[in-house]
Structure formats: structure tokens, C-alpha cells
């Protein structure tokens, strides 16, 4: 099953959307995360469809409020609706976003098969965010938030988060 639906975003709204970041990973904008599925303006009102990364993601309520605040600053009212379908996948994260994530200290998601190998401990492929070695090991399938797993580098001993692939 592949879900490669392009979000429907008015280009005039992008500059404002870019100012809203993920509260858990502040270097990433909501566009980098791919959680905005629709943003359209009709009669001065911005209608936004937001999709959660994980069902229980506590960041969603904050992102909704932040979006409303960002648009109110430019004199617009934003109405945010949470949509579940189609379900968010890590494929919707932008390439630029994945690079920013790595620089921030979180290993970005691998593709599905590689991810499974990494999380089952079958293959050493998750790259240490500190020294770039792939000689790393899984410490826990669950990290500081539900979307991440905890790894440690065998070379430089750095503990780091890996953003799990979600498909």
C-alpha cells in the first residue's frame, strides 16, 4: 500500500505555515513533518486539515493552537480540523526535514524493510548522529516519545533517538 497523496496547500499560505514548528522537534516546521494535509483560504478564513503522527501525540493540540496564533498575527482566522485518514506516514516528511532532524540529533527514519531490520537488531544500519558510525545498537524500541526508539553508538557511546518508520 502506498500513500503518496500530495497535500493541497495554497502557495500564499506557505510563508505563515513555515513559521509554525513541531513543539517536540523545534527545528522542523509543520510542513517538514508533513502533518498539514490541506490549507486553503476562502473569504479570509484559512481552513486547515491537520493529521496526527501518532494517535496519542500530545503535540497536536499545541500545533493547532500555534497555527491559529500564527494566522491571527497576519490578520486571518484559521480553523483547524484533525483528520485521521489517510493515516500519516514518515514518507510525508520532507527530505530537508530529515536532514534538519539528523543535524538536531535525531536519526531520521529509514525505509520500511531497513527499519524493521534495525529495530529487530538484525542489522547495524542506524547512523550515529554524533560520529556518523553505523556501529550502533538498539537500547529500547520506545524512546523519549512514542514516535522514537532509543539507540546508543558503540563507537562514541552517544545515546540518541531514532525516529521510527511509520507506514
Amino acid at each position, binding site marked *: 500500500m502506498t500513500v503518496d497523496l500530495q497535500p493541497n496547500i495554497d502557495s500564499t499560505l506557505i510563508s505563515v505555515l513555515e513559521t509554525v514548528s513541531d513543539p517536540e522537534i523545534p527545528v522542523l516546521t509543520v510542513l517538514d513533518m508533513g502533518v498539514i494535509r490541506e490549507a486553503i483560504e476562502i473569504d479570509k478564513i484559512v481552513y486547515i486539515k491537520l493529521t496526527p503522527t501518532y*494517535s*496519542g501525540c500530545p503535540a497536536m493540540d499545541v500545533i493547532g493552537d500555534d497555527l491559529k496564533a500564527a494566522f491571527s498575527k497576519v490578520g486571518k482566522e484559521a480553523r483547524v480540523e484533525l483528520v485521521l*485518514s489517510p493515516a500519516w506516514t514518515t514518507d510525508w516528511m520532507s527530505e530537508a526535514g530529515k536532514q534538519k532532524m539528523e543535524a538536531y540529533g535525531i536519526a531520521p527514519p529509514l525505509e520500511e524493510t531497513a527499519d524493521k531490520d534495525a529495530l529487530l537488531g538484525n542489522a547495524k544500519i542506524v547512523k550515529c548522529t554524533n560520529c556518523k558510525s553505523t556501529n550502533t545498537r538498539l537500547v*529500547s*524500541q*520506545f524512546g523519549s516519545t*512514542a514516535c522514537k526508539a532509543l539507540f546508543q553508538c558503540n563507537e562514541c557511546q552517544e545515546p540518541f533517538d531514532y525516529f521510527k518508520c511509520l507506514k
Partner: protein
Amino acid sequence: MKDKNLYNYILGIADNSLILGQRLGELCGHGPNLETDIALTNISLDLFGQTRSYYQYAAKIAGNDKTEDDVAFLRIEREYRNVLLVEQPNTHFGYVIARQFLFDTFHLLLMEKLQNSGDEHLAAIAKKGIKEVSYHHRFSGDWIKRLGDGTDESHEKIQEAIDGLWRYTDELFHVTEDDALVIEAGIGVNVSQLKEEYYKQVSEILTEATLTVPENKYFAKGGKEGVHTEQMGYILAELQYMQRTYPNMNW
């Protein structure tokens, strides 16, 4: 209420996630080590997230300006439809893992089917939830093997927990009158058809973990009809405390 059957059907799924999430939440800060503590509370959070989606939908069906919080906090014990398995206490880490594993295996099979529900809202919740539940299942299955095939003490304790909780597994496949109507409408999943596959999968992992598959003759049930074990009152006392003491309080 117009869709009373559907409302009860949704609670039959959602209440399992709520009560198990609450049980796991009790372990916050009390896990055997930091990583496991974090994992169990992450699973709890996933379950609460799924619960919210179900309850928002159930509240809409209930009408009368009901909210997700009313559904979660303002029912009496007899109105909760969770199975007895999920309300069982965190006796020791073996029980936490055994309860999780026995539930996750069922939960994953249920989500696989619910994805194809004729109700697009339930299908969407299941499509989202299944990704999370497969992580839970991998986590609890790994721990079953680690404890079963670990030291003598870990083997003994996890076997004790499996034996102790086995009597609650049959209820997972019980179909209530409300369920039957919702299944007939092409919306609900006929859980009785998941039973064979469930015991096959559970037995495979228990065997791999060098554990003995229990052979019970008697099984307990009642949760799905609102008749709970003595554990439930204590859970609700804690879960509902704030809303009962300070009605309508908000963050």
C-alpha cells in the same frame, strides 16, 4: 439514542484501550528500569490516543452535547464494556507483560479486520491504530521470549502470570447482542472468528519462549456486558476522581 448498538460496540473496543492505558499509566515512574518504564507509558499514551478518537465518535453518536470526556469519566461501572483481562492488576512485571501480550495479539488481529469496516470513521481509526499496535505487539512478544527463556526465576514468574491470566482470554471472542447487530450491518468485526488464529499465534510464541500453553476448562467473562471483577471499582475511583470531585474541571 439513535445508534445505541453502534455506540455500545465502539465502547466495547475503546474501553479496553482506556482501562489498559490506565493500568499502564500506574507504572509511570515505577517501571523495572528506565527504558521499560518509558516503553510502557508510551504504549499507554498510544492507547489513550486511540481511545480519544473512539470516544469523540461515540460522543457524536450519543448527541445531547456529550463530549469525549463525558464518555471517559462520567459513566458508572456497569456501563464500561472492557474485557476483564485489561482490568487485572500490575501484580508483578510478569503480569504486566503477560496481560499486554495476551491483549496485543488480539488487538492486532482486531485492527486488521476493523480497517475494512463499512464505517469509514472506525476504519480510519483502525488504520491509524494498527501501526502503533504492531509496535506494542513486538514489544510484549519480545519480553515474553526474554522472560520465558531467561533465568529460572523469570521463567517461573512469567509462566505464573500466563497461567493466572489465561482464564480471561476466552472473553475476547465473546459477541454481545449489540455486537451481533453491528456485525450484521457490515460495520463490526466478528471476533469469534479470530479465536483460532489467536490461540495459534499465542501458542507459537509461548512455545518459542519455552513456556507451557495452559489448558483451562473454565473461563471468566462478564466485562463486555458490564459485569466486572472487584478490580474495576478501584480503577474508576482513581480515573474519575477529578471529574467527580470538580465537575467540568479543565486543564
